[in-house]
C-alpha cells in the first residue's frame, strides 16, 4: 500500500505552495513576529501619509454636511456623479476578499491560504469606504436612518421596490458576513499571539478576542464546521451584492443602464478590480515584510490569471453592450454607446478600454505575469480602469439622455476629488493598522498546507 502511495505521490505531487522548507514553528515565527516587533520605518511613513489623507476625508465630509451636496460637480442631468462612482468602485474592490476566502475555500484551492486573510481584511475596509458615499450623498446625513426600515411616527417604510433599499440590505449583509468570516478565521491565530504575548495587557486583550481558544480537538471540529458554514453563506453573496448594486442602474430606464447584462457584468468587474487591489497590496506587503516564501511567485501568477480571465469577461460585456445597442435597433441605445466611445467622454471611455481590456492581455506572456514590477504596474492600471468604468457608466448615460435640451457636461469640483482621495486614505490607514496589529496571513491555514500537515508525510520518510 505505502509503496503505491509513494509512486502516486512522486508522479503527481505539485510543487510546494510554501517555499523555504518551513516548519510549523518557523511559520508561526515569521508571521507573528511582524505584529510583535516595532513596526518598520516604512510603516510609519505610509501611516503618516495615509492618516493625513483621512484628515482630508473628514474635513471634506464636514464641509459637505455643512454646505450640502451642491459643493460637488453634480448638475441637472448628472445627479449621480463621483459619489456613486466611488461607491460602486469600493464595493467592487471588496469582492475579491469573499471570492478568495469563500469560493476558493469551497473548491479546496489551497493556494488561497497565503492571501485570504488580507484579502478579507481588504474587503471589510473597502466596504467601509464604500458605505461612506451613500451615507453622505443624501445631503441631510442626520436623516440617513430613513434608509433603514425602522418603525417611525410617519407610519411609512422605505420603498421596498427600490433597488437603493435592496442595496442597503445587500451591502449590509455582505459587510456583516464578511466581518464574521474574517473574525472566525482570526480566532486560532489570535490565540497563538496570546500565548506568545509578554505583557499582561496584551495577553488580556488577545485573550478576550480569541474567545478562550485552546486548540482542543473538539474546538477544531466545531471551528471547521462553522468556517465551512460561513463560507457557504458567503458564496452566494459574491454574486448577489454586485448584482444588486447593478440593479441601481439596471432598473432605471436610462439608455446604457436599462440592460439585463448588468448583474453578471458587474460581478465580473468586481472580481477583476478586487483581485487587482489584492495584487497591489500583496506585492507591497510581501516586499516590506519579506514574505516571499509564503506569498510566492506562484500565488501572484495565479492571481494574474484570474485578472486576465475576468478582464476578458469585462471586455466581452463592453462589446456585447455595443452589439445589443446595434441589434436592438433602439436609436437611444445606439446613440448612448456611440456617444460613450466618440462623444464628450471619449477620453474616459478609452482609458477604461485600455486599462481593463488591452493591458491585462499582456498576462498571456509568462514573462510578464511572473515579473513583479510589471504586474504591480498592471494592477494599478486595472484599478484606474475600473474606477473609470463606473465613471463612464454613471456619467455618460446621465449627461446625454433622451432630451438633447437637458444635456450637460459633468466636471468634478475640488470636493469630489478630495473625497475620493480621502477614501483611499481611510482604506490604507485601516489596512496599515491591520498589518500592524493582526496576523496578515493565516498562521493555522499556512500550517495546513505544509507538507508536514499531510497525515502520510512521516510514513513516506520512514
Amino acid at each position, binding site marked *: 500500500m505505502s509503496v503505491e502511495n509513494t509512486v502516486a505521490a512522486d508522479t503527481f505531487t505539485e510543487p510546494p505552495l510554501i517555499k523555504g522548507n518551513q516548519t510549523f514553528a518557523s511559520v508561526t515565527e515569521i508571521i507573528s513576529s511582524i505584529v510583535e516587533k516595532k513596526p518598520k520605518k516604512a510603516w510609519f511613513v505610509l501611516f503618516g501619509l495615509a492618516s493625513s489623507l483621512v484628515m482630508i476625508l473628514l474635513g471634506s465630509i464636514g464641509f459637505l454636511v455643512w454646505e450640502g451636496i451642491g459643493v460637488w460637480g453634480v448638475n441637472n442631468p448628472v445627479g449621480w456623479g463621483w459619489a456613486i462612482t466611488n461607491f460602486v468602485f469600493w464595493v467592487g474592490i471588496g469582492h475579491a476578499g469573499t471570492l478568495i476566502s469563500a469560493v476558493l475555500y469551497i473548491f479546496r484551492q489551497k493556494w488561497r491560504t497565503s492571501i485570504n486573510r488580507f484579502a478579507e481584511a481588504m474587503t471589510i475596509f473597502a466596504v467601509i469606504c464604500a458605505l461612506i458615499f451613500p451615507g453622505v450623498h443624501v445631503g441631510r446625513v442626520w436623516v440617513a436612518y430613513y434608509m433603514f426600515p425602522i418603525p*417611525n*411616527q*410617519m*407610519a*411609512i417604510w422605505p420603498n421596498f421596490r427600490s433597488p437603493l433599499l435592496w442595496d442597503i440590505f445587500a451591502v449590509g449583509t455582505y459587510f456583516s458576513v464578511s466581518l464574521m468570516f474574517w473574525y472566525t478565521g482570526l480566532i486560532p491565530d489570535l490565540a497563538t499571539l*496570546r*500565548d506568545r504575548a509578554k505583557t*499582561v495587557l496584551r*495577553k*488580556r486583550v488577545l*485573550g478576550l478576542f480569541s474567545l478562550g481558544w485552546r486548540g482542543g480537538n473538539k474546538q477544531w471540529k466545531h471551528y471547521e464546521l462553522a468556517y465551512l458554514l460561513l463560507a457557504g453563506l458567503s458564496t452566494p453573496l459574491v454574486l448577489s451584492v454586485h448584482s444588486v448594486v447593478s440593479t441601481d442602474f439596471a432598473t432605471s430606464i436610462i439608455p446604457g443602464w436599462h440592460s439585463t447584462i448588468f448583474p453578471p457584468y458587474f460581478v465580473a468587474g468586481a472580481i477583476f478590480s478586487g483581485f487587482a487591489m489584492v495584487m497591489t497590496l500583496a506585492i507591497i506587503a510581501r516586499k516590506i515584510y519579506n514574505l516571499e516564501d509564503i506569498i510566492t511567485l506562484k500565488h501572484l501568477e495565479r492571481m494574474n490569471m484570474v485578472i486576465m480571465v475576468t478582464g476578458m469577461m469585462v471586455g466581452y460585456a463592453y462589446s456585447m453592450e455595443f452589439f445589443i445597442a446595434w441589434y436592438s435597433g433602439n436609436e437611444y441605445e445606439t446613440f448612448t454607446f456611440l456617444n460613450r466611445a466618440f462623444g464628450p467622454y471619449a477620453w474616459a471611455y478609452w482609458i477604461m478600454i485600455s486599462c481593463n481590456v488591452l493591458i491585462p492581455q499582456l498576462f498571456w506572456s509568462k514573462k510578464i505575469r511572473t515579473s513583479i514590477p510589471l504586474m504591480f504596474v498592471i494592477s494599478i492600471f486595472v484599478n484606474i480602469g475600473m474606477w473609470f468604468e463606473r465613471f463612464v457608466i454613471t456619467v455618460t448615460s446621465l449627461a446625454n439622455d433622451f432630451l438633447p435640451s437637458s444635456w450637460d457636461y459633468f466636471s468634478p469640483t475640488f470636493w469630489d476629488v478630495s473625497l475620493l482621495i480621502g477614501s483611499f486614505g481611510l482604506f490604507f490607514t485601516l489596512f496599515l493598522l491591520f498589518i500592524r496589529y493582526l496576523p496578515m496571513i493565516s498562521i493555522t491555514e499556512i500550517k495546513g498546507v505544509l507538507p508536514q500537515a499531510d497525515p502520510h508525510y512521516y510514513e513516506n520518510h520512514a
Partner: protein
Amino acid sequence: MAQIFPKWTNALPTILLIVVLAGGGAITGFFWYFGSPEYTDVGYQPVQPVDYSHKLHAGELGMDCRYCHTGVETGPIAGVPPTQTCMNCHTLVKTDSKKLERIRDSWATGKPVKWVRVNKIPDYAYFDHSPHIAAGVGCETCHGDVRNMEKITQVEPLSMGWCLDCHRNPAPNLRPASEITTMNYIPPANQATFAAQRIKDKKIKPPITCSGCHR
C-alpha cells in the same frame, strides 16, 4: 499555563448579555416614548397675549366656530380673526374689561394682536381645511373639545403617522354636514353604513401618496 483572567470574569458574558438587552430595550423605549410627537407636541399650550376663553365664547355663549374662523369651509386656512371681529361685540359688551385692554389698544392703533399659533404642521406638508370639512371631518377630530378649553391646547400629535391613520381609513371620522362643529359627538350606531354611503356620495378618496401632502 497561568490563567489570564480572574475567575469572576466568567460571569461577564451573562452580565454583558443582560446589559445589552436591557440597555437596548431602555434606549428604544426612551425614544419610543419621549421622542414621539405624542410626548413632545401633545399638550402644547402657549401663553396668549390676550386671556381669551374658548370655553366662554364657544361653550357657554354657544358661538359657532365659523363666526371667527371664517376660512375653514372655503380655503386652506381656517384663520385667526382680526381685532375687528372681537370688536363686533366688544364695542357694546364688557367695554371696560381689563382683560380686553390689548384688544382695545389694537383697535385704536390698528396693530394686530400677536396670537400664538397652537396647531402647526411643517411647511413641507400641504394642508387644506376645506376638503376636510367638505368630506365631513369634524373640528373636534383634530382640535379636540374646544368648547371646554379655557386655553387652547394641542390634543393630537399632528404627526405624519397620525394623518395617515385617517387617510388610510377615513370612515370612523366622518360625520353628517350638520354635525361638523359639534363637540363630544357620539357616532351613530350605524356609523359604518353611514360612512360607506358618504364616501360613495362625496367620492372621498384621501391621498396616501407622497405628493398628496408633500407637493
